[in-house]
């Protein structure tokens, strides 16, 4: 009897301790929640003299080679703003994360930046897959993302600003120009992923409408390096133009093998949409000389803003570095955001979004303007010929900035693309 009593006491005390623990746990967690709520109300990560922004690019993995320069350009823009006195009296403090060329990591890090660091905006991404991974995260947390790379369109998230070109600012005008200047027979070649497949769908519809002729369409896996079969196919069908949407290393292999097969730019025009100065540096200007690319900005673009920009970038990161279209778009994205914040007088996402409509900025590639409806930017389209020294010689430009139309609503032939 005595023993049982003792045992009972032990149990009782254990139960008490346990329930206390659970209760205190609940209390603590709700206290933390309350603190979190309060923090949220007091508008994010602002302290008295700094405000945090996130930078989320792949610093490791296959995409690092391209994305590291975007981080550099964004940091340079942030530094410029801080040097000129900051934003609303606050210095900008970048929080850098590595997306590691891995799409769930992009989602994870975007969540971390928004929930833990409470950044007021994120600049980041390169591939469409990484953007698609971040999209639900920024929408659910009502964050802001600035995406600086040309892409396949068909998207306009209320929480993303797109500073790269959509299809009607790059591919569509390039196809029209080729049809007028180079010939009707098109051969489409791309890496096997979403951008080339979607781009080619658009090109095929446009060719049909504008009197072009499709003589071949080929896709190779990402990282593919043997193009001899495809080159012999190209020799067979004799196209006037190869429209190239290959990505990364495949370009090196394709252009080298094309040259080895005795086909030069004089015999056949290759128009690329993913080869900029940075990529030319890897492939070699002599291999690519004479071929074409379409962008909104070249390092050789002649504006006073660009002279300053290129000089500064080289001084900061090294004489051998080059600037290109995505670098410029990443750079002016930071400035566009800063202008919107100034106009809104607040870092609040909804206010910044509202203020962003119609904001202009004198970017290195010409004046850009935010289109409030689609949250894309008005941009000038430029077609350039690659020179042996790795720079572009501009052959044509659209004169004035082209209005972004991510869903190609203003093109009657694109109606069948979207049901």
């Amino acid at each position, binding site marked *: 009897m005595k023993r049982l009593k003792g045992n009972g006491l032990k149990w009782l005390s254990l139960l008490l301790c346990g329930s206390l623990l659970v209760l205190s*746990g*609940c209390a*603590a*967690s709700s206290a*933390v929640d309350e603190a*979190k709520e309060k923090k949220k109300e007091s508008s994010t990560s602002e302290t008295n003299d700094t405000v945090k922004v996130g930078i989320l690019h792949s*610093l*490791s993995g296959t995409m690092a080679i391209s994305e590291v320069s975007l981080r550099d350009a964004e940091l340079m823009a942030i530094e410029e703003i801080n040097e000129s006195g900051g934003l609303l009296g606050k210095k900008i403090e970048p929080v*850098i*994360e*590595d997306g*590691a060329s*891995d*799409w*769930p*990591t992009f*989602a*994870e*890090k975007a*969540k*971390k930046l928004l*929930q*833990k660091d409470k950044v007021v905006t994120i600049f980041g991404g390169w*591939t*469409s*897959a990484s953007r*698609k*991974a971040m*999209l*639900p*995260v920024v*929408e*659910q*947390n009502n964050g802001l993302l600035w995406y600086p790379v040309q892409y396949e369109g*068909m998207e306009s998230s209320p929480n993303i600003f797109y500073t790269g070109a959509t299809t009607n600012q790059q591919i569509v005008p390039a196809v029209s120009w080729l049809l007028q200047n180079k010939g009707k027979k098109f051969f489409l070649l791309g890496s*096997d*992923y*979403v951008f080339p*497949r*979607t781009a080619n*769908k658009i090109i095929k519809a446009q060719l049909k409408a504008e009197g072009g002729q499709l003589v071949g369409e080929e*896709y190779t*896996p*990402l990282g593919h390096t043997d193009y001899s079969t495809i080159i012999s196919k190209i020799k067979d069908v004799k196209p006037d133009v190869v429209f190239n949407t290959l990505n990364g290393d495949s370009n090196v292999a394709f252009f080298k093998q094309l040259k080895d097969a005795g086909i030069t730019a004089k015999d056949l025009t290759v128009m690329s949409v993913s080869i900029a100065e940075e990529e030319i540096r890897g492939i070699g200007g002599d291999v690519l000389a004479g071929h074409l690319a379409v962008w909104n900005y070249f390092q050789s673009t002649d504006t006073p803003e660009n002279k300053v920009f290129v000089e500064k970038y080289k001084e900061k990161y090294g004489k051998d570095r080059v600037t290109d279209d995505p670098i410029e778009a990443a750079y002016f994205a930071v400035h566009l955001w800063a202008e919107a914040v100034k106009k809104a007088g607040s870092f609040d996402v909804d206010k910044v979004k509202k203020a962003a409509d119609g904001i202009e900025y004198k970017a290195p590639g010409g004046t850009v303007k935010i289109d409030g409806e689609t949250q894309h930017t008005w941009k000038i389209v430029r077609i350039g010929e690659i020179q042996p020294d790795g720079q572009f010689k501009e052959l044509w430009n659209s004169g004035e900035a082209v209005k972004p139309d991510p869903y190609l609503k203003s093109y009657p032939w694109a109606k069948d*693309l*979207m*049901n």
Partner: protein
Amino acid sequence: MIKKNWMYWLFFLALFLAPFYLTEFRLSLLGKFLCFAMIAIGISLIWGYTGILSLGHGVYFGLGAYCMAMYLKLEASGGRLPDFMEWSGVNKLPWFWKPFEQPVIAISSAIIVPVLLAMFLSYFTFRNRIKGVYFSLLSQAIVVVFVTLFIGKQEWTGGTNGLTNFSTVFGFSLSSPLTQIVLYLLTVVLLLSMFLFSRWLTRSRFGRVLVAIRDSENRVRFLGFNPTTYKVFVYSLSAAFAGIAGAMFVLQVGLISPAMMGIIPSIEMVLWVAVGGRSSLIGAIIGAIVTNGAKSFFSENYPDIWLLFLGGLFIAVVLFLPNGLTGVYQSVRQRKKQGEVRANEASSHVLQRVSRF
């Protein structure tokens, strides 16, 4: 024994109570790691216990994840065509997407589809006594086949972008913290039941046969067992675990793409188990959590050089801890035991000598 059990329970209790002491973001990370731990249990069963090295478990994980994601995508599209189909020129929902409007079918096929593939693959390979390196290579080939298929059929699978941008599950918002906590707890329950089932299995007669197959398959065959049946069963079981892990992963991370079922993730899965200790079930779980936790921790704190740390961790484990993290614990215990035994022996020797005199 009791002492050891006590530690397991404490570990799972800590997991159950995680929603109380972790922030929303950390909890979602832990939930993701626990999904990986499910795969790790399966790999420990086939690799650590049965000696089948599969470098292709990403496929089973991916199939499970896609089955769940198809349901979520259809629910998010609300009766319309999923967005990626619209711009890929598909006018009608493909027939094999239709059944996934039903959650029951989606969830059950997240298990059945990987299991069927695993059974098909393993039956024909194991029956023909293909094993070792040849099986590992074959499993890699399957990965390449599936990744290429999923990327190529963009109009059906979303291509490289995969399936993403879900809104609700059974009508509950996926972004609400409460839903995420419920999903997390469900993950812990599933992990615990997989762990208990596997522990029971490995301690049964069945488990002994598995170890025997690992150590000498021919001898097992001479003794009258048919190793093929055992291997097919355990391989399919691990595929089922990976499939469930995939479904839970999609619910918590909200994204699946072919990159996650590729060769690199498949090899990473084996690495988790190697780090934790391949012939220990709890080791596999710990390995998955520790490796992925370290990955997140290092990459958050040292975004420029985190890969070096992670590489260092792997090298350290391979060089110094051949039996993984749990191997350390076991060897410490063993040494202690041996020490005791030796001390006993020594004293008995002394006694014997004393008695001789």
